[in-house]
């Protein structure tokens, strides 16, 4: 049976990892390539690269980094950040990305998911949604969480999947950064609404949070996190052993 996936997310700006990295034996790593190798050697099931660069020069730097990573790391790579057109898909896929994650780009251009799915296949298109509670409803936010679109989140996700998104990343802005666990309430709603893989993001603070995630929601496919992995608060091999002890199926 298929395993639950653990996915570290690397924020990259102008070709460098943004958030500080602090492992034993691996201090202040700025190279996304080195960090990707480290995670790949230490049990990550997949990697997400998020390009938060604004400039064209920075984007070119990012594709160089991606190419270098994909030449040396042989696990699935998802790329997000600044994806607005199918040309953007082409640019990152040609450098070795396996999946492309869209967020604001899909909100601004409602045809993007459909066009990309048709051209590259559903398995290649990931809808990533930043979601926050507003007056008791779940709203989708755009532009890195700065803009409330007013759209209801579950309907939005269903629509994206209907158009061809093959996977959903649910980033709860309410739990993100709080480190008190994933947004189980929201994730349950999403898992009930769609039948493609769902990846939980936002809120992981401890190994127990991952155990709770997979025990509470049997249909969730993966847990994604950044800082708890980067700061060495959770080592992925330890996490996977803990999950296994709790009868959660993982790749060891």
């Amino acid at each position, binding site marked *: 049976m298929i395993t639950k996936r653990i996915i570290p997310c690397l924020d990259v700006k102008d070709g460098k990892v943004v958030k500080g990295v602090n492992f034993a034996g691996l201090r202040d790593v700025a190279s996304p390539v080195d960090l990707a190798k480290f995670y790949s050697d230490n049990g990550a099931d997949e990697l997400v690269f998020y390009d938060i660069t604004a400039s064209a020069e920075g984007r070119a730097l990012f594709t160089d980094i991606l190419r270098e990573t*994909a030449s*040396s790391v*042989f*696990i699935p790579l998802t790329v997000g950040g600044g994806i607005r057109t199918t040309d953007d898909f082409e640019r990152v896929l040609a450098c070795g990305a396996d999946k492309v994650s869209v967020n604001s780009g899909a909100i601004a251009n409602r045809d993007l998911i459909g066009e990309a799915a048709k051209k590259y*296949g559903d398995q290649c298109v990931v809808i990533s949604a930043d979601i926050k509670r507003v007056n008791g409803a779940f709203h989708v936010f755009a532009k890195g969480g700065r803009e409330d679109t007013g759209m209801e989140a579950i309907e939005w996700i269903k629509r994206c999947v209907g158009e061809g998104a093959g*996977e959903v990343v649910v980033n709860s802005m309410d739990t993100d950064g709080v480190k008190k666990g994933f947004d189980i309430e929201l994730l349950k709603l999403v898992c009930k609404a769609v039948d*493609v893989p769902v990846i939980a993001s936002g809120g992981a603070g401890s190994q127990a949070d991952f155990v709770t995630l997979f025990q509470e929601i049997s249909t969730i496919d993966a847990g994604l996190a950044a800082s708890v992995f980067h700061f060495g608060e959770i080592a992925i091999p330890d996490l996977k052993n803990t999950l296994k002890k709790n009868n959660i199926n993982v*790749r060891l």
Partner: protein
Amino acid sequence: MIAIVDYGVGNLFSLHSSLKKVGCETVVTSDKKTIENAEKIILPGVGAFEDAAKKLRDSGLDAVVKAEVKKGKYLMGICLGMQMLFEKSFEYGEHQGLGLLKGNVVPMKGYIDKDLKIPHIGWNKLHFEKPHFLFKYCKESDFVYFVHSYFATDCKESVIATTEYGKMLTAAVGKDNVLGCQFHPEKSGDVGLNILRAFCEA
């Protein structure tokens, strides 16, 4: 030299990189002569069967690949490339494959438990059905990475590994010089690299 057949489907960057990584001289090509001169051939593929089969036919490379296989050259299909080795696919209709292996490609939908998500995406275990040189550096229950919605069936004579997803599904095939992996060895970490290494050494 291994020739990765480029017939306009799929992303060949990682496959090329992974073969380089295991020290294998590799070329991505759509040139008939280059394929004829290669020691081994890899047929990749992602996307829909009908579209891929048509592109392969239109390029004329289907005949080249078949002729080389007939001469005894090793051929490995990967993912959709593996599915194309069979007689027919029933993905949105009925389509002819290369017919190099006995069997057909059918949807998982309606076959596996309906609670299970389709596509089958992620890491799953290899279960060996027959000893095979492709697995000489692997062991039973090693994990590999899958992304697919259709699977090969009625292929008892060639199946060498299966994986469990509700039911046992064909994971790898091998009969004489025709080999195939449903999973992506180029995305399956060290296990996948070891399978590619074994292919290169054959």
